[in-house]
């Protein structure tokens, strides 16, 4: 029982981390131009991912 007290919060925390990362990427506009991002990866001149 006592190990559950650690494991469950840990699982939830890690899941929450993933969720948080997704929500952040959504908010920062990384899904605005999926087609463009695919091409920009091949472009040597542009070193930055998104403005």
């Amino acid at each position: 029982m006592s190990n559950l007290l650690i494991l469950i919060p840990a699982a939830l925390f890690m899941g929450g981390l993933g969720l948080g990362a997704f929500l952040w990427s959504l908010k920062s506009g990384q899904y605005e131009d999926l087609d463009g991002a695919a091409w920009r990866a091949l472009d040597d001149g542009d070193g930055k991912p998104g403005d």
Partner: protein
Amino acid sequence: MSCCAPGTEGALEFEKISHGLPSSEELWLSSRDLGNGLRQTDLSVPKVHCGTCITTVEGALKESPLVTRARVNLSTKRVSFVWKAEENGVKTDPVDIVRRIAATGYDAHLFTSAEEANDAYRNELIRAVAISGFAAANIMLLSVSVWSGATDATRDLFHWISGLIAGPVLIFAGRFFYRSAWNALKHGRTNMDVPISLAITLSYAMSLWETIHHGPHAWFDATVSLLFFLLIGRTLDHVMRDKARSAITGLARLSPRGATVLNRDGSREYRPVEDIRPGDRVAIAAGDRIPVDGKVIAGLSDIDMSIVNGESAPVPAGAGSLLQAGTLSLTGSLVLEATASARDSFLSEIIGLMEAAEGGRARYRRIADRAAQYYSPAVHLLALLSFLGWGIFGGDWKEALLIAVSVLIITCPCALGLAVPVVQVVAAGRLFQNGIMVKEGSAMERLAEIDSVLFDKTGTLTIGRPRLTNRGEARPEHVEIAAGLALYSRHPLSRALVSAASSARDFAEVSERPGEGLEAVAPEGTYRLGNRRFACGEEADAAAGSDATSEVVLSLDHRPLETFRFEDMPRPGAQKAVAALAREGFQTVVLSGDRAPVVKDLAARLGIADWRAELSPRDKADYCAEAAKAGHKVLMVGDGINDAPALAAAHVSMAPATAADIGRQAADFVFLRDSLDAVPLAIEISRRAGRLIRENFALAIGYNIFAVPIAIAGYATPLVASIAMSTSSMIVVVNALRLNRLARSEAARTEERAGTEPGVETARFA
């Protein structure tokens, strides 16, 4: 990568002047002030489609010292750039910047940014999907432990954690369904969202009650995963519509944003269209669209009325002529006295007609809602009956309530909620790959029902632009001279001449006489290009040139050198599309505002027996309404402003991408490619989608017939319910994907056909 630079494909240098760039005032008006003397402009660049396009456009913009930032969005085909409002005290002319884009060969248009709010809604939906997905995964894991034998305190703990996760998620992610269900109930209707809302609320409440009383079963997993699946369906549906909408509004915008008003004291002022009052004098330059209805006070010009009445030949206008908003002044500048404000102008009249002509789409109820109409009362009745049955005969009312809830959960239209959107998204994807945009899912349902097709003529069955037909007969040097003259005019016949010529002679000075033609003085004499009377300087008999074709004469000192004949070309694939529709048993009719001989000629050439000519916008809409009354379901294909009421009145409608703004807004489908093949293809795919939707319904209902007795009998444990529910959703999705395979073979065939027809040339106009 030759595909990636449309500007370099042997384009003539002079073609560039024909790019219709927005005016400097319009750009100022539409740009956003960012502070610090910086302004941002968003333009639609419909031709960008690959990485090289991005680099080319961004590179061209960044070369300018005035541009501080430029970024192309390939998905929405837009470019946004930030520029300095002034440099060294000189006010920037943003057209200089936009010209850089045009110089690379890409067209740039302004677009209305009214639809930006939709993006926010999409993000809200995606956020809800993410959060419900997170909750569903975690609760499912906890449930698995319960099923595998967790007991007593551990089980209660797991139930409590599940409940704590599910509660907020229910409110956050479920709000879309609650809101929609509440709206439906408020108006005395019922839709799919009513049973959904009821099921998730009841199952949550029951599970909570069970948890509090240390019960062995809780339904939190079912509640949340149901929410998750349904939200996926809803998001897909929204993204599909959003994508179509942005592609449609991203194309050229026709109504001008502002116009130059001449004040009484002689000063000029650029004002937004809404601020132009009747009585104001408006200056119209050659190439401008008329912003409001008005009367010409001074100036001469040829007016392109095609967007208003479907007539392909320009109409001369002089002092006293009445002009309608949306028409295009081709050759001369005019001073116009506004007779109506923008709100009461011709365009708004058309909008009024459209609103009055509520066609099939207003009466149409979506398949999902029609299903819900029978489904939800049936489900509620079933749940109630099993509750009363178990209560009265079994005597245990708590047990009865549990069974009633499990009936609700197991019948919850999870598969039904996915059945329609998934198929429609897959179908819309197939259509999109063939250059056809669908505005909403119900349009496909309606398209599958039609029995007759109505076509507009100018711009729909034809390209809407004249093309030179006797290029081979004309002497090359004459073509070169004529192109040199025509370069200076926006008249459609001149444009056609220029695009047909491979080179053009340079003239120092060319003057244009609106309504007559062009004149240039060269060492060997005076060249004239225009109608026969103007070019030959005599009362030439009007017999030359039949009604269906138009001609332009090139003369040297009034001696005719060459006669160029023009014809409005049928759209590529028009004949084949009409033949294909006839084969499928559709009745085809041409509805045109053009003159009878022209319409008759084209109808005969395409093999359409039934045609109507010289129709007003109202006539067209009335024709659609009468056909509907006679029990026909019609598809209207049209492009002009004059078609908009008919597009709205028809059961379902389609417009080419070159259509007037309002036409594109009114149509359910917009096809981006030149070929009219899009019409039979869209019908074909819609019918297949309809068949798949019905199959999916059959699957979902079949699953219910199998599962409901188990639930009513009281044997449905939460484990069984969850697995059964997920499986039925999977099956529905997999079945929808079959459309992909069917459509792929169709696309391959289309490509094959296109490949064997090298003669069909795609028209390239600015």
